[in-house]
């Protein structure tokens, strides 16, 4: 789905876009490009500015500064009804007094398309979301998932340059949400419209997106493919927010010439790290990011070195989570970390047992320390 940026005009481009509400900076100079046909997610906790960004793109908030290009055209001062974007609201915001058909036909009718054109587009859109059979119902006669589909069709039917989705699955239960995720991705692939998708659910963002912008405090912390963001987080926030992560404060030891960096672990052991983010460069201390799924447990001390890094730990808690078992551990200097294992038999993991936690150094990353300076 990704096309190389140089070939085509991006569907959407934000340049140093900011939004201030009084003294509060909701969005702080963010820049990003959404390519034609791309599924792009804005991911972050509530209050990170992702919804404000989306509302600026839709035209409901006017940017304080910066530029907003839709299909290469400056659009930040256009009112919503003149923009080639459509928004799927979290609460769906269907017109309660109109049938499903009239809801979906609302946009095309405003565009003054001919009667037959409107009818065929509406049918297309409703078939795409598998709601054609419900065309004559009122929204109140639909379930949450069905309303969601209608809201999606109401946006798709206009063939917007960008379809904006504001936590569209937020009101659905987990099982339905999973189903809709897959279907949403499928629909997006089929219609080829660029999606900008706002969510606070990192799993949803990883599942759906071609690329993700992780937002925090009004800024983009990291921008990349789901694999990049999961496997090589560039900031402490990203590592913590995306997936489970052990964050271990370490001293940076050797920065050898070949680019490999070694750190001093709690307890005094040293270990190599897989990658170093710019945010931790030239700092004396740093945070080691280690995914719990990469941590193995052993009774015997494993051979240290380039292949394996290890620290001694004591089992604090064993939590059964269904498909995996999470083991909370305490290491030297009071450091806590957890390991998740999918092994069937964990009955020998008793609280208080002393073991070794070890991992492959290549699977760790170094990001900035808690506060710049001392950990």
């Amino acid at each position, binding site marked *: 789905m990704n096309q190389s940026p140089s070939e085509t005009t991006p569907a959407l481009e934000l340049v140093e876009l900011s939004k201030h509400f009084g003294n509060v900076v909701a969005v702080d100079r963010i820049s990003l490009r959404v390519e034609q046909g791309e599924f792009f997610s804005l991911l972050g906790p509530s209050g990170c500015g992702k919804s404000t960004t989306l509302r600026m793109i*839709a*035209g*409901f908030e006017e940017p304080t500064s910066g530029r907003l290009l839709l299909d290469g055209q400056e659009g930040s001062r256009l*009112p*919503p*009804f*003149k923009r080639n*974007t*459509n*928004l799927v*609201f979290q*609460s769906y*915001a*269907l*017109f*309660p*007094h109109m049938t499903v058909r009239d809801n979906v036909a*609302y*946009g095309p009718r*405003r*565009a003054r398309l001919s009667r037959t054109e409107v009818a065929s587009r509406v049918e297309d859109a409703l078939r795409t979301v598998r709601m054609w059979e419900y065309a004559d119902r*009122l929204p*109140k006669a639909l379930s949450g998932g069905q309303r969601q589909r209608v809201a999606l069709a*109401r946006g798709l039917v*206009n063939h917007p340059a960008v379809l904006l989705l504001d936590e569209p699955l937020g009101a659905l239960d987990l099982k339905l949400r999973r189903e809709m995720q897959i279907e949403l991705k499928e629909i997006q692939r089929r219609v080829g419209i660029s999606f900008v998708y706002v969510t606070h659910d990192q799993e949803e963002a990883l599942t759906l997106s071609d690329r993700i912008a992780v937002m925090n405090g009004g800024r983009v912390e990291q921008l990349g493919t789901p694999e990049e963001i999961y496997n090589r987080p560039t900031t402490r926030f990203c590592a913590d927010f995306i997936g489970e992560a052990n964050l271990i404060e370490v001293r940076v030891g050797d920065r050898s010439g070949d680019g490999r960096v070694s750190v001093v672990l709690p307890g005094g052991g040293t270990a190599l790290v897989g990658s170093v983010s710019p945010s931790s460069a030239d700092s004396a201390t740093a945070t080691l990011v280690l995914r719990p799924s990469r941590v193995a447990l052993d009774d015997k001390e494993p051979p240290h070195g380039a292949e394996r890094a290890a620290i001694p730990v004591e089992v604090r808690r064993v939590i059964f989570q269904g498909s995996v078992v999470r083991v909370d551990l305490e290491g030297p200097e009071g450091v806590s970390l957890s390991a998740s294992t999918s092994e069937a038999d964990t009955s020998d993991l008793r609280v208080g047992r002393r073991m070794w936690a070890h991992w492959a150094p290549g699977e760790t990353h170094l990001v900035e320390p808690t506060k710049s300076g001392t950990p």
Partner: protein
Amino acid sequence: MDDPRKPGDSAATADPRENHGAAATADPRENAELSATVDAGAFAMLGPVHPDERRPHDEIQEAVLDVSYAGRGNRRRWAPYVFISTPVGVLLTFFAGPLAVLAVYSFQVRSRGGDGSFTLDNYRAAVQPNILEVAGSTFVLATISMLILLVLAYPLAYFIALKVGRWEIPLLLALALSDELNPLIRIFGWRTILARNGLVNTVLQNLGITQAPLDWLLFTRFSVVLVLTASWMPYAVIPLYAAMKTIDRRVLEAASDLGAGWFTTFRTVILPLTATGFVATMVIVFIPIVSDFATPGLVGGTSGRMLASVIEDLFTRRGEWGVGSALTFLLLIVSGVVVYLSYRIARIRNLDTST
């Protein structure tokens, strides 16, 4: 139903069925005392209905009702009627009663030493050409006033309900306050503004816009419509405001997002979604305007006469109670038809949205 009962059961009786029987025969006051001894979760058990007959979502509602009129089955059935008997009684005595008296008067020969025998003369007198003429002008003036009110009240209600933010309550209070003013004081206020040497004419002449005072400002149809419109504004805004409040503002954003400008949004979304408020406003405003006799009497002069002032005249000055009653009833019937028609229009255009 079973779970909330459990703590109560242990506090009162062991078997729920026994408990049910006890509650059914006990005096309500006893029940109240009993309820004080058990925890809040057990309030529901005071009701005489067997648990199996209940649906889960009735629980909370019934728990409340049970406290208010727990007791024997028949008492429970009668309690609501007892409760509403007072307002109904007041209405019957002070509203329907006088109306019935007027109805009788309208069919009797009464005035000028009449003997009270049956007649239709009053109705014949009430549809004489000179009265019909006033009736026609009344409906024209009332309709114009109502339309102006709707045109002005819609944007006002829209801004108060959805746009002004923290000024919402102050503005509503100001609107309510403007209606607290004694109507007579208010109408005389208008007279000082609109009079030949009043505020408007003085300002216009001092600014050199007009040479001579404008005579059409007061004691004309213009002044009647103006004062009626100003007087009934709160009654038009408040039902519309209430209707606007029920609109999810995201729905308005959706309309804008889908390409609708403000007028299209109004026509396709706001108007249909406030149809109930629209009809309510028409009725709430039209009826009192038609029956307003103070405004046309004080600022209407001869050209701005309305039906209500004719009726007032018939009763208070000319002693024609029979004709006055007949005219009152004709007015009531026509008003009823107007209300019914506006309701029908809202239905036909599928504007009646009870969502």
